[in-house]
């Protein structure tokens, strides 16, 4: 019996009991747009920021092209992801937001135990919801990073329309946001690609489903709730 969180009428779909739908199409789309845009922005942005990366810009046709790409992709980064909160079925985006800002005791315990996990050992923490404490922090970094990097980026883009004092502050803010997000991304990628224990979560962001086993072990609270909903419907 697969658990479907998306379709209210489960009778219409065949349910595979071995997997659980974790991310809808919309969520996956916004994640990947955000992710790809982020990498493009990071790559082109570093070209502007540092001489170390400038030679690499030749790959995209030079630094001026890189700057253009940076600005163009910045629009995608902001607009497309932003739109997902309003078009299609935005409920899950809002739920995600609500969830990450609801940082519980259980989340905190997860975070404290996490370093052990990170290095392949076993941490002890209570059952986690759809997003565990670590994911919530990653999300928060992403949310705040995106907001600050967007706002500061706009100030930098339209520098002549803002007072120099503000523009001057935009640079460190932009840079700091980038650093935080980059650091988070490194961890995020490790966990989903190289961390044997967390790695199965990747499937959820690819086809939407995670194994029931993974869901039960890593997000027990969520799994139980979804199962209840399923059973009650």
């Amino acid at each position, binding site marked *: 019996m697969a658990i479907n969180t998306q379709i209210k009428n489960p009778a219409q779909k065949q349910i595979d009991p071995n997997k659980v739908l974790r991310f809808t199409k919309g969520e996956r789309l916004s994640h990947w747009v955000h992710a790809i845009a982020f990498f493009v922005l990071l790559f082109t942005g*570093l070209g502007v920021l540092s001489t*170390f990366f400038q030679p690499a810009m030749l790959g995209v046709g030079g630094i001026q092209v890189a700057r253009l790409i940076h600005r163009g992709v910045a629009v995608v980064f902001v607009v497309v992801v932003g739109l997902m909160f309003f078009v299609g079925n935005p409920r899950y985006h809002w739920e995600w937001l609500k969830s990450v800002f609801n940082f519980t005791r259980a989340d905190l315990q997860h975070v404290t135990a996490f370093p052990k996990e990170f290095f392949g050992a076993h941490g002890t923490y209570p059952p986690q919801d759809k997003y565990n404490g670590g994911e919530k922090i990653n999300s928060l970094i992403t949310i705040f990073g995106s907001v600050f990097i967007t706002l500061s980026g706009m100030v930098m883009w339209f520098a002549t329309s803002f007072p120099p004092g503000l523009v001057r502050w935009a640079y460190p803010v932009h840079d700091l946001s980038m650093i935080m997000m980059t650091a988070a991304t490194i961890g995020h990628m490790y966990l989903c690609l190289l961390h044997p224990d967390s790695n199965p979560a990747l499937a959820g962001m690819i086809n939407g489903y995670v194994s029931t086993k993974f869901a039960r072990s890593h997000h027990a609270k969520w799994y139980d709730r979804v199962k209840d909903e399923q059973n009650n419907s």
Partner: protein
Amino acid sequence: MDVSRRGFLKLSGLSIAAFATGLGFDPAVAEAKGYALKLEGSKKFPSICHFCAGGCGMLLYVKEGKLIHLEGDSDHPTNEGTLCPKGSSLLSVAYSPDRVTKPRRRAPGADHWEDISWEEALDRVAKKTKEVRDASWKVADEVVNAKTGVTETFPVNRTEGIAFLGSAEVDNEESYLISKFCRVIGTPYNEHQARI
């Protein structure tokens, strides 16, 4: 918003741990690199500024027949190398696209110029000079003697129809030749800017 110098130094202290990712700030000091001077290989011509009557010295740097730079002549006692904005700008006269570079003629009633040759231009002017000179020649003036009341005739050898304005804008030799030209062809009406 800004930090004082002391604050700056304090904050700088934090930078020592800069990490070699390329993000770190690398205070670059230019190595003494050779700055080539565009004047190399040019010939210097002293000249005199063409604006006011101060007679400031200018130095022209000419390379392969082209004026490449113009500045005040440092050896000149009047200006010691300096020039006013007008003098400083005189390079631009040498190759100004707005200079007149060919003789031209505007026919009576015409609304445009036509380029003509030097030969034609000089011919036209010479012929007109002769024509006006001959037509407006005054052999004598009649003057009433203030004491006797008698009208007397005096030879004056003068053309009344030609006037020449110029010039404080040309060299002495040219001014002189204009002066001589006018009096020899019979016109005393040679005036120029000194009057005004």
